[in-house]
């Protein structure tokens, strides 16, 4: 909880920065603040404190996802450092990103439907504005508009579902809803409709097939760094919320939502990965791959029960680190080549460092050992097989092979195709951050025990 206070404080500092004129120091202040927030979260470990009449519970699951959100955001700010120096209105944009974090932490720790709604809205409203932050760019506007429409639509589903569940149980708190379900032998039919509506609303937020169609356009249209924020921090928050919702609140009515969710899982795995193959733009490919990864996390979510939190956490951490690298490099190339097509061609000759970092990121996403992505997939597969879902695992294995196909498309063009344009300079700051992230991917793959707190 203390970390949430720190994050909100950072947002206020950011808004004051414009007036008090210390814009240049903003990013260092953020980094220190976020590190403090992580430290505070670590100190709360194991306490499982309740806040606001049990509306938020900072148990270990909430804390670990909060730490992941904070750490990802810290890396994001380091990568975005240059971006904030070139853009105008940096303080309000930076404040919006901080508010995204705040919303994410609330989504990871809610114990009350109203709190969930609050978290989702704080996060989403900030993102709508961020997605449209390139005001003169048509695609950015389109992305913001589409994101807003689809987001509101999903929230509508969610609200309707919450209302129906409330109608059946008379409760907003997750634990009390669960208790009420256990106490009532006969639940009214609209309760089940409510559960399904909530699942659908959440599936929109994590962009699972068939509720994913907004994602590629929004990811492509939004400024690349904002896309990387959506693909990492937002996805982490959405999955943390999804996990709490289904396993804290609805484990007793598993038979209502588990099968639909498994159908969604298979659809997400197959459709997203197959569609990604046919993308010619790397950014769009990464958008579909992000949807595909949601499929693997869903597989973990639907096969593991409450014990799946550790697997989900590890997978999200591995995926976030790799995604940050990929988008940071994409962003650097867009700036260097002025958004030219095929900017990855011959990157190994233009900048060996970027090519190697990108390769590590893509290999991790493809699930090649000894990188983090492999161990993430391994944990998911072991968990699913141990629960008897061998069929689902075979599907997931086949789709990860399809994944290899499109990730290697990029690798082949980096190492094999002829480059256009001259060498690309990489600032030593960016080199350091990317090296750190690469080390994180290696460390998570070689010593995964250190990253499995749950």
């Amino acid at each position, binding site marked *: 909880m203390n970390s949430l206070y720190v994050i909100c404080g950072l947002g206020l500092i950011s808004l004051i920065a414009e007036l008090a004129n210390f814009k240049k120091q903003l990013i260092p202040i953020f980094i220190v603040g976020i590190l403090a927030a992580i430290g505070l979260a670590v100190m709360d470990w194991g306490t499982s404190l309740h806040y606001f009449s049990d509306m938020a519970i900072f148990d270990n699951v909430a804390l670990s996802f909060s730490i992941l959100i904070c750490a990802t955001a810290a890396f994001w700010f380091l990568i975005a450092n240059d971006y904030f120096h070139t853009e105008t209105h940096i303080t309000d944009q930076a404040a919006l990103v901080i508010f995204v974090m705040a919303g994410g932490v609330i989504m990871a720790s809610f114990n009350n439907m109203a709190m969930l709604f609050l978290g989702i809205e704080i996060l989403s409203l900030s993102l709508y504005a961020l997605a449209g932050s390139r005001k003169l760019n048509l695609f950015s506007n389109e992305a913001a508009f589409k994101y807003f429409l689809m987001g509101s639509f999903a929230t509508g589903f969610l609200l309707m579902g919450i209302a129906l569940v409330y109608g059946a149980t008379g409760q907003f708190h997750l634990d009390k809803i669960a208790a009420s379900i256990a106490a009532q032998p006969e639940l009214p039919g609209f309760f089940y409709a409510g559960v399904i509506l909530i699942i659908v609303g959440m599936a929109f937020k994590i962009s699972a097939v068939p509720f994913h169609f907004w994602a590629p356009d929004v990811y492509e249209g939004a400024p690349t760094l904002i896309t990387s924020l959506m693909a990492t921090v937002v996805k982490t928050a959405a999955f943390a919320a999804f996990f709490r919702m289904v396993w804290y609140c609805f484990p007793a009515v598993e038979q209502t939502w588990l099968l639909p969710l498994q159908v969604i899982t298979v659809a997400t795995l197959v459709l997203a990965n197959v569609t990604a193959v046919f993308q010619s733009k790397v950014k769009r490919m990464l958008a579909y791959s992000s949807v595909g990864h949601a499929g693997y996390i869903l597989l973990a979510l639907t096969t593991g029960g409450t014990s799946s939190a550790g697997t989900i956490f590890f997978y999200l951490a591995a995926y976030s680190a790799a995604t940050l690298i990929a988008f940071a490099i994409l962003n650097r190339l867009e700036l260097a080549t002025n958004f030219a097509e095929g900017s990855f061609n011959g990157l*190994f000759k233009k900048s060996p460092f970027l090519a190697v970092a990108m390769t590590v990121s893509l290999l991790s996403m493809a699930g090649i*050992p000894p990188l983090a992505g492999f161990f993430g997939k391994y944990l998911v597969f072991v968990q699913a097989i141990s629960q008897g879902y061998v069929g689902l695992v075979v599907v997931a294995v086949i789709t990860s092979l399809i994944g290899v196909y499109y990730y290697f498309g990029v690798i082949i063009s980096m190492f094999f195709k002829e480059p256009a344009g001259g060498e690309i300079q990489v600032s030593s700051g960016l080199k350091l951050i990317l090296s750190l992230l690469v080390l994180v991917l290696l460390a998570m793959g070689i010593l995964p025990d250190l990253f499995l707190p749950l």
Partner: protein
Amino acid sequence: MLTTFLIFFPLLAALLLFAFRPQSAKAIALGASIVEFSVSLIGVFTFDKTGGAQFMVNVPWIASAGIHFAVGMDGISLLLVLLTTLLVPFIILSSVESRYDKPHTFFGLILMMQMALVGVFTAADGFLFYIFWELALIPIYFICLIWGGDNRGKITFKFFVYTLAGSLFMLVALVYLYLQTPGSHSFDISALYAAGKALPASAQSIIFWGLFVAFAIKMPVFPFHTWQPDTYTVAPTQGTMLLSGIMLKMGIYGVIRWLVPVVPLGVAEWGSTALILSVIGIVYASCIALVQKDLKRLIAYSSIAHVGLIAAGTFTLSKIGIQGAVIQMLSHGIIVFALFFIVDIIAERAKTRSLSELGGIRNVAPILATVFIIVMLGSVALPLTSGFVGEFLLINSLVHYQIWIGAVAGLTMILGAVYMLTAFQKAMSGEVSYLATGFTDLTWNEKMVLYPIVVLIIAIGVYPAPLLAISEPAVNDLLLIISDVTAQIK
């Protein structure tokens, strides 16, 4: 300790090459690989020839998942490690540094490859084995992608996806076995053996295919071989040497260590099918090799034929079959390395590998021709060469298994002699081809590589007993594990 050193020393050397990008990358890589070879020789001389697995290291790695860093060597492992550490210095020595852009990356990747290969041959933990198995794929993929020939993007990609597809199903099979182990689960090799043995025959059959496909793609066994000729042809020479000399042995080794003892009932059920596929592969590849015009491609197909024979011998589950497989893995590794090197020498000087354009090389390069004929006779298994020992044992085991299968395999040896000697004749004798003029004989550097190989081919052929003695206890142990099943078959 020794095993750990053998695994991590090449990695360390590779990382130093990547980090410091020294000028003399080749010399440093060569030095590192010679140190590695010397250490493996210490292993050979201190190895207790009567004992089982030795030089064991077993420390918890991912404790929460029951995964250990467990490595060790029994006789079979030791011989394959020896093959790896022996060939890598020769592979590095045979390369021409100026031919490769960014040589430090090139030699670093070769050393990384060596690390993964030694890891595969020594791992005593299923998870660790899988990690090394996959790790071996990454450096060779980039070696082929960065320094390969025309159209390498597509071809190397096919190679990567094929092998990865196989190994992912192997992973699922290993995880399934892991979840059958008692308690909080373990990937320890003996725990996996016990878990696999306890399964009913139907489950063992499914796991058999999960594992076998991975190994069959790597070797490759018919009909999983379609990636191989293109990849061998397009890879840079050193890549082809790594692939054919060492990497395909991973498949055979996998069958011996991670398939036969893990699911003996599955092998009893499907081993004969695998054996017949292997024999089909021998006939098929030999027939195609007969009509090849490209010398490198011809040797690629001959490699499929040879490995088919090794696989077939292994699946007889007899002592002579497996002993023959082990010795033939060594012999084939050495011979195929020398063959690809000779092809590289010819192609570099004549600017072509096409048999119809070559001719008369013997007149201008007699030493090369002499070395070529010795290596070639080793390849067609002439007595007193190393190829003979292995092939004799293998065909012997096949004859005992089923007389007509042995006959078919034996006939293909004749086919092998036909296409190899035809190729030799076309390239070496006859009129001096207009391309062969200006063709120089072996250089000092090339002699340093080829002379020791020739000596080895003859030495192993004349006196193979010490090598067979190293692997014998390990083979006996293996047969003991599956003895109740083999007794049932009989």
